[in-house]
């Protein structure tokens, strides 16, 4: 089979490009390890339910001593614990999420909350929810608050599609 020398050269260049990019992916995955982009904070996933922070009773929304609102959530196959959290709009909040099993993704509709939840790490998101933007897509409740869905956006197993929760956003 005859291949034109110019074509051979271009083929070599594109293969080199593919190889370099593939190598880069493998290198960064192995040498720099895979971790959530927001916050590198290690936690022992196997003992997650025995840690004070992510114990069953400590999950949910709390106002810390310094006034910040912290929501702690566990994403476990195939539940979001707790199912429902209530957070205020217009004030800075911190979301801390961990998993005892596999990689999950946390997304809250109508907000910029979106993070991978990787076993071995605590994922953390600092944000201020804009009431107008959640009100556009959420369900308005009788008391003036708005409910938006929270869900897993990283395929985690056969029950992935059941990993839903609700975030109730109260106006400022």
């Amino acid at each position, binding site marked *: 089979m005859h291949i034109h020398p110019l074509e051979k050269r271009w083929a070599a260049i594109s293969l080199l490009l593919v190889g370099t990019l593939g190598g880069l992916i493998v290198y960064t995955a192995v040498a720099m390890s895979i971790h959530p982009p927001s916050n590198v904070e290690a936690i022992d996933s196997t*003992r997650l*339910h025995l840690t004070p922070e992510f114990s069953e009773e400590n999950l949910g929304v709390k106002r810390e001593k310094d006034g910040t609102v912290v929501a702690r959530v566990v994403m476990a196959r195939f539940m979001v*614990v707790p*199912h429902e959290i209530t957070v205020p709009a217009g004030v800075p909040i911190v979301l801390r999420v961990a998993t005892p099993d596999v990689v999950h993704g946390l997304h809250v509709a109508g907000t910029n909350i979106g993070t991978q939840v990787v076993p071995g790490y605590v994922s953390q998101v600092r944000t201020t929810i804009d009431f107008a933007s959640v009100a556009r897509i959420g369900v308005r409740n009788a008391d003036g608050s708005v409910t938006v869905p929270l869900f897993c956006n990283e395929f985690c197993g056969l029950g992935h599609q059941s990993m839903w929760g609700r975030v109730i956003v109260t106006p400022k």
Partner: protein
Amino acid sequence: MNRRTAVIAVVLAALSAPLAGGPSSHVAWTLDTVKLVRGGDSKKGQTLHGDCSGCHGETGDTDTPDVPNLAGQERFYIFKQLQDYKSKSRASSMMSESAAPLSDRDMADLAAFYAAQKPSRGAGSGRRPDAAISALVALGDGTRLIPACDACHGRRGEGNPGFYGMPGLRNQKEVDLSYQLTTFRSGERGNDVYRVMRDISKKLTDDEIASLAAYYAGAEKKPATAAAQEKK
């Protein structure tokens, strides 16, 4: 290591005695624990089973309706339940007493023995599930946020070895299955980490609990199509 774990378990059990507060289970699936359970010796387990056979039968299966079948059960589940009985995370005076003298290794050996036994029977009415129950089992319920039972318990409840500490449900007894779901719902049984089963069972109706118990107890029987052909 064993003694230290035992001491910790006893102290934790004393602290968590009235079920108030404390983690729902002290079992953590660390690499060491997983290795211990995987390395269980079923021959040693068989010897230990001698004391259990009075209630649980020769191979772990028995006709007594409220005694669960153990033959063929997931080994991680058996290990976890024994640990939870010992630490009183799961309440049963009979089983807590039986589990108290067992070491971690004994529990791993027993788990290996039961896991290796051939399941003998299911004990259900064999009632065929209606469409709603089949959907709940295979797909879950999005509006009530109930995950599919199959997702964790394996297809037709045959278990899922990758899900440490979660049981297979087929070959169980209808009475026992509905009792477990009812006690999870009331909180009487609360050794499910992160309240997974307590939360799910709260969303189930009485009728669903009865149907699910019948479904899994009958799941060992011939598939629905074969049963239907037999009727013809």
